């Protein structure tokens, strides 16, 4: 098996006294398309934010390709939830994707032809090249999500962390995004996606992380989605999910 | 909405904390200031015994009134002043402790002519009854557009008017203690002595200013406080800021003053003790004129300034003006040497 790209050990994050993410440990490898699922408030977004440095974790270690700390974070590519952004901000689609080049350009770096090509490619991949000059607030939800994805592509990393990219997005966009993610996986990237829709988990992802503050199970959808795991994750809400869970379990990965 | 509610709540809390803190101010400080001014003006007039029981409290607004009232009232009354030296009566914001002072008082003396817009509310809300003496009763006011009430309130710079005011003050305090009483007679005596001193000062001022050469007889200051001075002693008067320090000077106002200074070739312009000197200094640096002063306009001087009473303050002003505008200065000697100011 290839080298682990992301190794997390004992990650714990607490806001008050109750931990929101507790003793979380896992390892991921290149060429994986991982769905992170769990009930609301399970700490999925929090966990991702801690990995990329948007939040401080209280305990735990994170290795990215063997390195830790700031260097490690630079290797991660993060696509935040759409809701956390100020859509009135004066930026165009092109500007947003250009932000993906900040890691390389820094404070004052001039853009080279290569940079422009990377940005144009990213826009083309998400079919937003015609919108390059539009202000970000003029776009629909699906279009905005695509721009975010383009920004991530422009970073040219190979470890992707996406936080609920399909929320509030039209079906066509969802399909397009899944295509891009699959392509990334083919290219050897490791893609982790916080996902909210249990019914599509089996179809989109080869690996599933089921969590509720703690990691309950990680593996293929068939392995993970059994009654016991789902009960541990969803607790009393299991009744509602019974039918879905059976359907999911039946799909296999 | 949330913000408004919590902000208002905290504003209310802050304001109440503020009121609480100010209300708890000890009374000692005020007593000390009054006694010092009483000693400063007092000659050897300690012959009279104070009336039996407590001394009536007389509350005055400005520091000019405070020193005059203290000198005239002597031991017979307890004079308390709302304003402190160096303050600006145009902009003063009264506090609950001032209201308390008025409530405890038996007599209130105000300057009048709309100088202290804030005192009417204090008196009205103090409850009880007390006579209010307006020191400027009978004064011939100078009209001034844009000033509260349409008049210029700085009447004390015309000593003939201040002389009338001192009579008002005397009469008010005599009525308070009773004209037939020993205290009343002493107050009347001191009042007459004070008036005599003021009248002498008036004559002396006219003499000093007459020694200033004609073209240089122009007094330029921060705000229009000296119009009565100009009227009484034949000297031109210009203020940069208008009659109340509340008005803000525009660049044009400053430019106009600069032109005036250049035209009249004034050797000196004057800062005032209770007004921001920045604009005067600006004009001075622009014209090469000297920024002289400070002149005391809305208040007597602070401790150590040599201008702690009305008389000494007036003398200092005249000295400053005469010397800097090229006149000849000679010291003032009061009619009764015992009572001369420092």
């Amino acid at each position, binding site marked *: 098996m290839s080298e682990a790209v992301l190794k997390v050990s004992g990650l714990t994050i607490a806001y008050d006294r109750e931990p929101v993410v507790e003793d979380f440990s896992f390892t991921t490898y290149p060429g994986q398309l991982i769905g992170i699922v769990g009930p609301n408030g399970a700490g999925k977004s929090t966990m991702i934010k801690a990995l*990329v440095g*948007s939040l401080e974790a209280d305990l735990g270690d994170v290795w990215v390709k063997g390195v830790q700390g*700031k260097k490690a*974070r*630079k290797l*991660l*590519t*993060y*696509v935040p*939830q759409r809701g*956390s*952004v*100020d859509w*009135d901000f004066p*930026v165009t689609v092109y*500007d947003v994707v250009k*932000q993906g080049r*900040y*890691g390389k350009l820094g*404070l004052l770096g001039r853009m080279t032809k290569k940079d422009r090509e990377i940005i144009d490619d990213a826009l083309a991949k998400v079919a937003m090249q015609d919108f390059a000059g539009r*202000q970000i607030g003029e776009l629909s939800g699906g279009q905005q999500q695509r721009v975010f994805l383009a*920004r991530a592509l422009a*970073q040219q990393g190979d470890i992707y962390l996406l936080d609920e990219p399909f929320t509030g997005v039209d079906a066509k966009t969802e399909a397009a995004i899944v295509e891009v993610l699959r392509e990334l996986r083919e290219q050897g990237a490791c893609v982790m996606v916080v996902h909210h829709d249990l019914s599509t988990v089996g179809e989109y992802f080869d690996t599933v992380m089921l969590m509720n503050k703690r990691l309950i199970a990680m593996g293929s959808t068939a392995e993970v989605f059994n009654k016991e795991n789902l009960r541990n994750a969803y607790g009393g809400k299991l009744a509602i999910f019974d039918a879905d869970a059976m359907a999911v379990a039946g799909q296999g990965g | 909405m949330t*913000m408004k509610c*919590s*902000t208002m709540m*905290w*504003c209310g809390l*802050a304001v109440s904390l*503020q009121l609480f803190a*100010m209300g708890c101010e000890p009374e000692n*400080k005020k007593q000390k200031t009054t006694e010092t001014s009483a000693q400063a003006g007092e000659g050897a007039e300690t012959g009279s015994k104070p009336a039996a029981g407590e001394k009536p409290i007389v509350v005055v607004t400005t520091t000019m009134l405070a020193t005059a009232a203290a000198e005239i009232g002597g031991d017979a009354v307890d004079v308390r002043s709302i304003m*402190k*030296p*160096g*303050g*600006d009566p145009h*902009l*003063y914001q009264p*506090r609950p402790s001032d209201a308390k002072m008025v409530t405890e008082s038996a007599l209130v003396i105000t300057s009048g002519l709309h100088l202290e817009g804030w005192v009417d509310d204090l008196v009205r809300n103090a409850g009880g009854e007390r006579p209010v003496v307006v020191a400027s009763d009978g004064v011939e006011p100078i009209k001034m*557009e*844009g000033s509260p009430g349409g008049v210029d309130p700085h009447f004390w710079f015309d000593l003939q008017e201040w002389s009338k005011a001192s009579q008002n003050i005397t009469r008010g305090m005599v009525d308070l203690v009773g004209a037939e009483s020993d205290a009343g007679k002493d107050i009347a005596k001191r009042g007459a002595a004070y008036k005599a001193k003021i009248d002498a000062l008036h004559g002396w001022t006219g003499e000093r200013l007459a020694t200033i050469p004609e073209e240089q007889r122009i007094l330029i200051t921060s705000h229009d406080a000296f119009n009565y001075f100009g009227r009484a002693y034949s000297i031109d008067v210009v203020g940069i800021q*208008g009659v109340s320090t509340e*008005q*803000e000077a*525009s*660049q*044009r*106002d*400053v*430019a106009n003053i600069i032109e005036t200074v250049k035209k009249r070739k004034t050797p000196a312009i004057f800062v*005032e*003790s*209770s007004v*921001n*000197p*920045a*604009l005067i200094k600006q004009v001075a640096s*622009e014209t090469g004129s000297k920024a002289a002063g400070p002149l005391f306009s809305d208040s007597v001087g*602070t401790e150590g300034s040599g201008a702690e009473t009305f008389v000494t303050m007036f003398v200092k002003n005249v000295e400053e003006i005469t010397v800097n505008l090229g006149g000849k200065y000679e010291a003032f000697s009061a009619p009764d040497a015992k009572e001369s100011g420092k």
Partner: protein
Amino acid sequence: MGAASLMTALEVAEIGARTVEFFSFKYAFVARALAASIMVGGLCGAVGTFLVLRRLSLMGDAAGHSTLPGICVAFLLAGSVSTLPIMAGALVSALLAAIVVGVISRGPRSRSDAAIGIVLSVFFGIGIVLLSHIQRVATTSYAGLDAMLLGNVAGISPEQLTALAVVTVVLGGATLLFLRPLSISTFDPSFAASVGIPVRAIHYALLGALSLSVVVSVQAVGVVLVSAMLIIPGASAVYWFKRMPGVLGTAVGLGALSGALGAWVSYIFEGVSTGPAMVLVATTFFLCSLGFGPRGGLLWRAVRRRERQRALVARADASTSASAYVEAGGGL
């Protein structure tokens, strides 16, 4: 005195003559006042743009008001109203307020708008108490302390102007240098953190820059109006441009222009201090932006709505006439 002169309309010729005089810099103080007004306008416009975009506009108000206790304490300690200690006191107090706001609003349950409102009121309240106390116990003249509340650029000294110039150049340079991380962290803080931008440090640096700007601007416009100069240019600029460089440039431009025009008005008319004139000019710019700005201005919105309606009506007409045609027996 001043209001009456405004009322009696100055002849146009007179205004023209005074304007020529204004630009000939007949007096040194006018040149200083103009320079100061332009710098205050530009500086506040730049710093304020980030406040507006981060929805921290109220912080501008808080920064202005929170200088008051520092000014009073500095006066009590220094015993005089001289520039350097007063400005130092103002700066310390404004920075302290910024830190307190930061600390309060970092907690999980707090809201930054309430935090700012609280700090504004409490600091200013403390300042008023101190001012009262000074009125009570002043042994030296405190004249001019309340000038900090209102400010008057006509009285600005060369030293104050130098301080203003230094701060303007430094902060202006810093803004340009750090424009990218500033913009990214304002737009998307989570993403910014993930690419290594120190989001928290930037937040505090911005508040520090705000405090510094406020302290040097207070002498021109005073404590109360400085928040207007911080907010109005940035708020106006977003109606004109859809990208950061345009917005920032417009804000700086509008701010500087407001300063210049305010100074000009103060030179033409008696009794109109520069500070309020500046704010009135800036407000006029805002109203124009709100009305006519291409990005969301009222006029454009009305025009677009009309066009939309016309298009819808045209389409409806076309389909009705088509169906009428068909009904009348015409083939398709």
